[in-house]
Each structure stands twice: as C-alpha cells, then as structure tokens.
C-alpha cells in the first residue's frame, strides 16, 4: 500500500505492506535509524517517536496508520546538521548513556515532557521516562541530563540581567 508520511517536517511517499510497522518503515524505507528496534512488542520503548508531539511506540503502529500525523524522530530534533538540541547536549555533558541503544527514545520522551512542562520535578522526569528501559545506566545520569536541559532551556527564555 502507498502511504504518505510527514516525518520531521518532510513528506515522504512510501510503498509498504500493511504489516510493516512504522518503526520498520522509518528504518528500512526512510533510512532513519535513530528509532531502535528492541523488543518489537511495546515493552522496551527503544522505538519511541513523537506523533503530534506525544511519545508513541513506533513498533505498535503500522505505517499505513500513520498518515496525517506529524511524526518526529531523533533525526528531527537537532536545529541544524552538526548541531545538537539542548537535550542532546545535556545527555552528552552528563553522560546520560552508556551503550546508547535507549538514548534516542529517552531524548524524545524528555523532549515531549519539556515541551509541556518547563520546570519538571524529579518525579515528573522519572515518570516521563518510565516507559523506556535502559539496561546500562541505572537512569541517574539520564534524569540528571533532563534536569540540566530543562534548567538551560528555562534560562534561554529569561531576560538577560543588566
């Protein structure tokens, strides 16, 4: 079936089988490999993408269901090639990762959180990433990264003193 997908603000027409998940379509048809295939049945969260700004499992959605939505993958977060979003930068700075497999999904989940809550508490951060499994870090530095990014992003919007 032919389906038109709006991915990272670009329209793509792809030909897929109905059983092709959005995850496999992104990775194999659009070569956007940032969404990772982990468990492929909705448990691990490694395949998280944003659908109209909300984190969603791309392994639990078929590509043929995904037309008409604004889909954002990790490739769509950086402001320009070679640059990082404040969240990506904070993950590097606090080393909020180890093997990196869960990282794109963690960053997207955090991105959705910060879009609606500029000053999340630790509990809110933990809740926002609770659907995503990380088997390396113990989560502490991921939470630290999100708190750091939130703090910096709030600073960006504050009028400069003096």
């Amino acid at each position, binding site marked *: 079936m032919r389906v038109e997908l709006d991915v990272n603000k670009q329209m793509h027409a792809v030909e897929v089988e*109905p059983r092709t998940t959005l995850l496999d379509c992104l990775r194999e048809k659009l070569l956007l490999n940032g969404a990772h295939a982990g468990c492929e049945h*909705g*448990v691990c969260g490694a395949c998280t993408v944003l659908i109209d700004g*909300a984190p969603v499992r791309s*392994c639990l959605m078929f590509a043929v269901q995904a037309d008409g939505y604004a889909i954002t993958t990790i490739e769509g977060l950086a402001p320009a090639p070679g640059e990082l979003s404040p969240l990506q930068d904070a993950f590097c700075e606090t080393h909020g990762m180890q093997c990196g497999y869960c990282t794109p999904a963690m960053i997207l*989940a955090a991105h959705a959180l910060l879009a609606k809550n500029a000053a999340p508490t630790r509990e809110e951060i933990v809740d926002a990433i609770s659907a995503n499994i990380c088997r390396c870090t113990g989560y502490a530095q991921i939470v630290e990264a999100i708190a750091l990014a939130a703090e910096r992003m709030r600073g960006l919007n504050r009028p400069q003193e003096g």
Partner: protein
Amino acid sequence: MKPAAFEYSRPADIEEACALLAADDGARLIAGGQTLVPLMAMRLARPSRLIDIARIPGLAYIRDGGDAISIGATTKQCAVENDPLIRAKLPLLAAAIPHVGHTPTRARGTIGGSLANADPAAEILLVAATLGATLTWREGAETAEAGIAEFVIGPMVTTLPQAACLTEARFPVWPDKRIGIGFHEVNARASDFAFVSAAAQLALDGEGRVTRIALSLGAATPFPIKLDVDALIGTRCEEPKVRDAVAAALEGIEAMEDLHASAAYRKRAARTLATRAIMDAYKDAHARRT
C-alpha cells in the same frame, strides 16, 4: 517479532466497518492497537484483515448525560486522563487511568479497545465493573447493549458478537453528595500489568456513615469481579470492620496463578489492597465534605 501478513481497510463510517467485519471471520477492528499489535507481533493473533476505526467521525467523545458519562469507543485514554468532566464526575476512572500502561500507550490506546480486549488486569475494565458500566455496540443496522457483568465472560473473552463494533461505554455517576474513591494495584514496575488491583467507591451520609459501597478486584481472577461488602453500610469504615468485610467477601474466590505471582500471594495482596482501597475511599469522601 513481526506480525503475519494481513489486509488493511479504513472504512469511512461504522456501517462500512460492520459490513467489512461481517464479510470476513478473520477480520478484527483496530483503533489504538496497544493490546492487539503486541499479540500480533507474538503471533498470538493473526487477523486476516485489520479494519481501522480510529478516524471514523463521531466515535470519540466524552458526554455528560446527567446520571452517566458516555465515552465514545475510540476516545483515547490520554483524552480521558486530562478531562475535567471525568475528574469531577468519575473520580474513580480519573484515579485509575494513570495506571493504564504508560504515557506512550495512553497516547494511542482507546477506552473501547481496552474494554473490548478485556484483559483481566485492565484498569478501565475494573472501573467499569465497579461502577456497573453499560456497553453499546453496532452490528449491521442493529444497536445493542449489555451491562459489563454480562459482557465479560473470561480472560480476554467477551460476548461482543464477531461482526459487532463497540461504540460507547456509559459509566454511571453517583448522585450522592459525598462520595469517595480508592484505587490500589501491585505490579513489578509502575507501568506493567497488575498482579492484583482493587477499586472502591462509597457514599456517606451527613453523619459520616456509609450509605452505598462498591468494590471490585482486578487481575487476580479471569476478569474483574465485584465483591459484596454491603456489611459496611451504616458503619464509619472502622478498619477491623473493613478487614472482616473484605475477608468475608473474598472467601471462596480462587485467584489465578502464573510465573510472577502465586494464587496465595494474589489472595493475600487482594485482601490488603481491597482494605486499603476502602479506607482511602472513606478518607477521600471525608475530604470532599462540603
């Protein structure tokens, strides 16, 4: 973990959805897909055709009908989670919804999908059982409805006809002035399936005595069951009385057993969580005193 091949249809309206269902025994409806797609990935489900009803107009709504709130079948769980009417009129559903999966599954998962799949651990089903919700469906040109107790007959088994499409769930709103709710569940991690869950709603008179009480147990049995704790009517929910009433209500109930939790554990947890749910509901009703 790849689903078997299937055909995909996106009907324009419910009549077309019903016709597609009636034409193919292997066809299944999909809306959010958060229960169905994992089953398909594990090939526990192999539908020949998916009929996508997620975008059929007029199936997603939350309406105040006075003595009940009607929720359209394809209403997303996240919409219910953030709805002020639900918070005001169905506080038990509002309390349970954050425990349904997690934010990403609630962004896609629907109220009707959860009810129609009837997972024993489903929190929405538990609330429906506690409040005595009524489900409405369309089959061809016919509309039919059933109370939740007649609708769910086994783990993931309902009386919904094969060619029917669930359209609405109607949750009764208690008219009582002072109501309180309690919800508890125990699971391996916050977003995972519950081993046991308990939901309670009660109403108090001006003297702080219980006039009405509903209690249900989820995940411990093949489908959520109501427990009779009417012995607490007229009391002020003193803890020993609550414990006794819960213990009496649980007598003879056989709990399920699996790798994660034994039947004995589930029964013990059920006793504790049901007691806590009632105690919380009592405190909640007091806090809502006007």
